[in-house]
């Protein structure tokens, strides 16, 4: 697949930093603290964002240790395994019990909602969380399932022909959100 042309930069490193700080505050406010709170990132970039949010949440609450963070690979739970070649699965890692926790699922981009649907099914296999909330860095619209995020870094209306690319220092060497297109 040819790399699509860069259309616009949606967020620079500073914007991304501010958005994450605000989201951390919102998570603490909504849950009235961090008791029984855990963050679970959807692999790969959701995990990176979850780790950053966890550190900020700990900062907001002046905790000695960050809140627990897990990582979920949802490859085996996707609803499109029959319509495209199998993608290699990666190990999930949830180093805490999910039972009765408030779990904040974290992903980089919310689009059709199918990944979140798969993540909810996967999460259930680890136990019954008290409640599950959703945090995403970018909500690009175009939902195909009834899914809504609780915490959003930036809302960006897009067309299906465009692609939203989230770059993070840990995985890509820099922090940036860009929109790639798309017309032809």
């Amino acid at each position, binding site marked *: 697949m040819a790399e699509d042309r860069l259309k616009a930069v949606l967020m620079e490193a500073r914007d991304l930093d501010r958005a994450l700080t605000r989201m951390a505050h919102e998570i603490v406010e909504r849950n009235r603290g961090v008791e029984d709170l855990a963050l679970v990132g959807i692999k790969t970039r959701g995990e990176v964002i979850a780790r950053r949010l966890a550190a900020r949440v700990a900062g907001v609450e002046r905790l000695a240790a960050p809140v627990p963070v897990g990582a979920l690979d949802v*490859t*085996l739970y996707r609803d499109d395994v029959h319509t*495209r070649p*199998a993608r*290699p*699965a990666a190990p999930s890692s949830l180093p805490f019990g999910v039972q009765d926790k408030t779990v904040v699922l974290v992903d980089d981009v919310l689009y059709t909602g199918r990944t979140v649907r798969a993540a909810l099914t996967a999460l*259930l296999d*680890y*136990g019954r969380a008290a409640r599950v909330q959703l945090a995403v860095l970018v909500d690009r619209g175009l939902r195909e399932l009834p899914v809504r995020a609780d915490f959003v870094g930036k809302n960006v209306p897009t067309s299906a022909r465009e692609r939203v690319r989230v770059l993070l220092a840990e995985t890509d060497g820099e922090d940036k959100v860009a929109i790639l297109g798309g017309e032809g």
Partner: protein
Amino acid sequence: MGTLGRKDLLDLEGLTAEEIGMILDEAEAFREVGLRPVKKVPALRGRTVINLFFEPSTRTATSFHLAAQRLSADVLDIKVGDSSVKKGETLLDTVATFEAMDLGVLILRTAHSGSAAFVARHSRASIVNAGDGMHEHPTQGLLDLFTLRRRFGRVEGLEVAIVGDVLHSRVARSDVWGLLKLGARVRLCGPATLCPQALAAVWEGAFPGRVRVVHELEAALEGADAVQVLRIQLERLQRFLFPSTREYSRHYCLTSARLRGAKPGCLVMHPGPMNRGLEISGGVADGPQSAIRGQVANGVAVRMAVLHLLAGSEEAA
């Protein structure tokens, strides 16, 4: 992102190091599934997997059955005693009948080398070779590689001894191909009737100097990182390939005393089922260096990885 662009898994001889690495990486993900409270994922929902075994097997058949079930496939076990092959149906007709029932993956064990490849050529279904005569047993080879990689972090550079009836062993053949492709060195060890000097010639062309044959167990163990002990099949005794079980065990039984001649921490593997006291002592089999139980657990994860990667390649092909 790579996928296994193959319909079948017939042997390790035909796989590249990258393909083997991809299966082992994938097995890590499935190993994690085995540690969860709910050890099941929906990846193969609605697919049919059939275990067709023409030779008795508890371990391999159970392992494949569990792997398919943990992927949410519909799985059937067919033992030859129950099948129409006993009534004179050909193997291809049996497989064609399964295909008419929308078979996705056929797991096949037979006594005849090459039978899995033969069926694969004539079937649209994915074929997994679960042992064909003296040829290969690729998922056993993969789970041995996975066990080594988990223990040492890599396979490259390891010195691995394979001891026993190497000549007749499909496990040994898959192990050797896999080990060589991933960069290990292999010592084959057994009496000359079961481990002839000429055996190394099979691999000499592709991997010169990386396989050697020794007839003394002590020499095979010296400096070894791991040892795979093969099962001695007692029926070979009747064919005069070795004189007596007592003489075999005197020379080739892996005992604690002999194991001390290997590297400290040398990993002990055995594909099972074991003849305790014949090829391996109870003390070694149950000892701290034994990976034998772990091999069984790893087998399920590796077979899940293989089934997932092959079933996903169906539409891609």
